[in-house]
């Protein structure tokens, strides 16, 4: 056992090395000069050069990297170049609320989600199951901060049963400590419950189809015993890893949640540049802090997975098996699936609204009208106005353009690149190990932290945001494709084609590629949903789209200060994000169900 643990820990070393290289390269190669940012707009070239020299930025890249790694290995995380404090101490000072929130969230989420998942799997196809699944889809679709504000609005402002914001250390009494953690925990645990419940359900469902469950029933065991002793025990591996890997999913959520509830934790710098109204920001923090927080980033949900993946999250869901018998006619049934139809319908509406924005009774979305500040929704302004008198409705409609564009771009680029990488890794053996270790490393970088770092360095911009969201998605697509390729290449019909002298490119296109289409369509929709959500979160944190561009995240970011006076500024765009992401997620689930022949087979008859 000890040897096993040591072996696994040793196996993470190459991944950590790759992460270090990638993080360093991304931060150094990104356009933008930390020295220039630090020096400010009025700095002379000499001043910038002096700062560069002081920070060692003028040395060759390799030496900078070597020095950074050397100090890292000695526990020296460096010094914040903005506050001049050691990064390690900055982290130490703020770690307590973060740990407290993370622990309560995990405990609560596991206690709720595992039983929910087991019951849903056991009652597969009933209303209990559909309820759990609906909850989990919604949980994946509502941005964390929108939930947070909903809780604040409901529990704290309307009912006045809980404190709104702030943090009390446990040393000052357990009661107040817990009291202040209730709402943040409820907020943060929703996505976590969704993730765990979904994984548990999928895993238990999978196990319930196994022969030894039939054996257990043939022995005359009662259902609770079959479920716990035989099903859950075997289903536990993916569940435990999703709990473990999900801990790092919390990092993104914690950053946002702490920001909403004013807990003192690690937080990104608010942008001070840009033409938009300035916001009173938190003291700036260097991205190196965020780099130090890097960890395994899990998938946002157990998606269409590959059977052979070492990542149990990936294998949690039923596999889009390589050979659906009636593949040639697979798409039409998909188009009759209610989830697919609903998702498509909502998407079409949002798309039309985005395209036709100027003709939908909108005003200029960036026009300031100081006399009409913070007006509640009325006939003149359907969604009310924000702190600068701008019409929230107009901004939301125009904001759809940004969100959809980012969703589609990220999905298209990550699917295209992931497909190529996955095909190469899956078919060229000697490249596989190297490519997949690099992919592991890239996957370990949380997209939100990467985006914050990139935006801080190269400035806000749609391109930067797309790059930042796309990079961590590529490995997921690549792993999915690789998994399909590895399964398909063992198929006798592929061997038959090799035996018939079919050369590699034709072999891939003709016999392997078609098997990846269905899972890629599904994966693409999930990537799209996750990208829309991530953009909203990034902009909300002030690390996304330039503030002058009305995007859903930006609108909400600007509504933060006046939330208690004018909740509509956050609620309406929040609902739009949630509805759009929900539609895309439902579309993806529908596609997966109708393109996934395994489920159909499971519901079918005995051989």
């Amino acid at each position, binding site marked *: 056992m000890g040897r096993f643990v040591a072996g696994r820990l040793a196996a993470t070393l190459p991944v950590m090395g790759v992460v270090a290289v990638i993080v360093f390269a991304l931060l150094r190669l990104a356009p933008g000069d930390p020295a220039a940012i630090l020096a400010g707009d009025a700095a002379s070239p000499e001043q910038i050069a002096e700062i560069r020299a002081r920070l060692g930025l003028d040395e060759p890249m390799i030496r900078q990297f070597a020095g950074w790694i050397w100090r890292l290995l000695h526990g020296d995380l460096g010094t914040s170049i903005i506050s001049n404090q050691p990064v390690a101490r900055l982290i130490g000072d703020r770690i307590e609320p973060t740990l407290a929130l993370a622990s309560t969230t995990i405990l609560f989420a596991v206690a709720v989600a595992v039983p929910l998942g087991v019951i849903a799997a056991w009652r597969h196809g009933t209303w209990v199951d559909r309820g759990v699944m609906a909850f989990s889809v919604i949980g994946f679709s509502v941005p964390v901060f929108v939930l947070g504000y909903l809780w604040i609005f409901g529990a704290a402002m309307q009912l006045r049963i809980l404190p709104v914001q702030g943090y009390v250390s446990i040393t000052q009494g357990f009661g107040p400590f817990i009291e202040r953690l209730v709402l943040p925990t409820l907020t943060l645990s929703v996505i976590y419950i969704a993730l765990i419940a979904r994984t548990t359900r999928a895993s238990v469902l999978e196990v319930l189809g196994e022969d030894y469950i039939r*054996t257990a029933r043939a022995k005359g065991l009662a259902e609770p015993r079959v479920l716990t002793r035989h099903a859950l025990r075997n289903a536990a591996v993916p569940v435990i890893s999703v709990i473990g890997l999900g801990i790092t999913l919390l990092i993104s959520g914690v950053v946002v949640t702490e920001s909403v509830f004013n807990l003192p934790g690690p937080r990104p710098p608010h942008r001070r540049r840009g033409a938009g109204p300035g916001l009173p920001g938190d003291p700036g923090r260097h991205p190196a802090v965020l780099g130090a927080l890097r960890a395994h980033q899990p998938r946002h949900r157990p998606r269409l997975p590959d059977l052979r993946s070492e990542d149990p999250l990936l294998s949690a869901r039923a596999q889009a098996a390589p050979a659906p018998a009636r593949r040639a006619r697979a798409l039409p049934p998909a188009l009759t699936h209610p989830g697919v139809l609903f998702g498509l319908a909502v998407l079409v509406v949002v798309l039309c609204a985005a395209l036709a924005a100027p003709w939908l009774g909108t005003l200029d979305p960036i026009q300031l009208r100081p006399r009409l500040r913070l007006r509640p929704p009325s006939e003149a302004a359907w969604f009310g106005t924000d702190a600068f008198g701008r019409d929230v409705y107009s901004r939301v409609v125009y904001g759809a353009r940004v969100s959809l564009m980012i969703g589609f771009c990220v999905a298209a680029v990550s699917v295209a690149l992931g497909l190529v990488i996955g095909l190469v890794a899956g078919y060229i053996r000697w490249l596989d190990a190297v490519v*997949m270790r690099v992919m592991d490393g890239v996957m370990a970088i949380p997209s939100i932290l990467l985006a914050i770092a990139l935006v801080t360095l190269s400035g806000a911009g749609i391109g930067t945001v797309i790059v930042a969201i796309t990079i961590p998605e590529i490995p997921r697509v690549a792993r999915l494709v690789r998994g399909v390729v590895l399964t398909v290449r063992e*198929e*006798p019909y592929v061997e038959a*084609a090799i035996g018939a002298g079919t050369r590699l490119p034709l072999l891939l296109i003709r016999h392997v590629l078609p098997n990846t289409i269905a899972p890629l369509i599904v994966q693409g929709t999930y990537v799209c949903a996750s990208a829309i959500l991530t953009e909203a979160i990034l902009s909300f944190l002030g690390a996304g789209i330039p503030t002058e561009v009305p995007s859903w995240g930006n609108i909400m970011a600007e509504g933060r200060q006046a939330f208690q006076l004018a909740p509509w500024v956050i609620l309406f765009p929040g609902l739009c994000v949630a509805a759009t992401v929900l539609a895309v997620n439902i579309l993806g689930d529908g596609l997966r169900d109708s393109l996934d022949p395994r489920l159909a087979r499971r*519901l079918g008859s*005995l051989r």
Partner: protein
Amino acid sequence: MSPVLEIRGLSVPLPGSGDRAHAVEGLSLTVGPGEIVCVVGESGSGKSVTAHAVMGLLPPVLKPSAGEIRLQGEDVLAASPSRLRALRGGRMAMVFQEPMTALNPVLTVGAQLAEVLEVHAEGPSGRARHERVLALMRDVHLPDPERMVRAYPHQLSGGQRQRVMIAMALANDPALIIADEPTTALDVTTQAQILKLMRELQERRDAGILFITHDFGVVAEIADRVAVMRRGRLVEEGPADAVLSRPQDPYTRMLIDAVPSATPPAPRPRPAARPPVLEVRDLAKTYGGGVASGLGGLFGKPGRVVHALDRVSVTLRPGETLGVVGESGSGKSTLARCIARFVDPSAGEIRLDGADIAGLNRRALHPYRRRVQVIFQDPYRSLNPRRKVGPSIIEGPQNYGTPAAVAWDRARSLMDLVGLDPSALDRYPHEFSGGQRQRIAIARALAMEPDLLIADEAVSALDVSVQAQVLDLLESVRERLDLAILFITHDLRVAARLCDRLIVMLNGRVVEEGETASVFADPQHEYTRALFAAAPGAHRRQAAE
């Protein structure tokens, strides 16, 4: 004596628009105490559905619509869920087909055995329970029960796991044991041992056994009475001797006739010796050991070395068929895959018409690929489900520059040769049955005009009646095209049917080699003799002779 199991007029409708309305229709059947009743049928006959219906283990989509199932007089179909649970594992028990998956991988064998005793109120507890578990394991002749109770299923062989399953079924002294193809997944020699065990147990206890099988050899070995099922209906029932020697129904007769005989046909006249098509010399394939390539091997454990093939030599001349016989793990499939160059051999020579192809890289191998063609075991996976049959067949010839029109013409004439309509070329594989797909696979192989055809368990996945037809086809193809065939199989009887010469493999080595007739008449190696003795039906045949 009143029967332990009485099925009367059982019907189970099939959901949706299948090719027929019922999985089982109007079935009546009885099993007396101490009696072994074999239910025989090909795939889709409804025999498994019947077995699961008795246990109340049908999937929710299948619900019996008529009839009754009485276990010692008690109607199982009318029993409450809790009563049903008490009956399962108590008065009736089941042994499943796949011993590899039927045991829970995370619980010890002992715990799983003890569980059956534990959940039934009348079972013993504490120390007595542990003793009972050990006694059960001794009953099924598991070696070293004290140690094996603590073993996990993956540490046991297939035969041992099936013994554990049987012990589990016996635990509460059931009146009825249902065995659903309990030996189908096992090697012949293991199958013989398990059948012997079931015979022995049935003699010692008074349980009735409902034994589901597709193999008339197994029936001959074990049955007291036989019930033959076809497409959900009972076609014939009677004492085993009567049904086997004087089958009344034509379907039963066809099934019995289709079982390959254990005596090889007289050696056929063979063309004069010509230079060999294939000469394999000292071929070896080892797995594990060595330094794994790439970063992936960086933290891997140094594995043990497995000799999948150990200095195997084979010669094959045009027009000749060589049978390679062995059980799982014997290396017979590895041999086929090395010769077809799907895997790279570790050492040795593979000469095609004198040229060594063992070490050629992908590019250099290209011209030789078309000369060796393989027919795979699983007809459902060997055709690309997304491509119509025609494009699948002409793909190979086109790769070697045959013009499309010529390739299509040839494909059409090949359809004729394998006994399919040329319109089949425009259809997708899923529109064909397993036997038809295997014909298509043969046509695809022949389209390449190969010198050597490798049939890797090509008939093992097929029902016996279809098996016989495909063997006939291979035979006629061999005559007409003067092909050399390397015929890989686990079944001596099937090999006897087609092969001129045989080699018998064990643990990666060739242990016996010779003309088919002489191997059958006078097997030299003890393993070959064991294989003959284990072939199901052998005892009864010996008794008849």
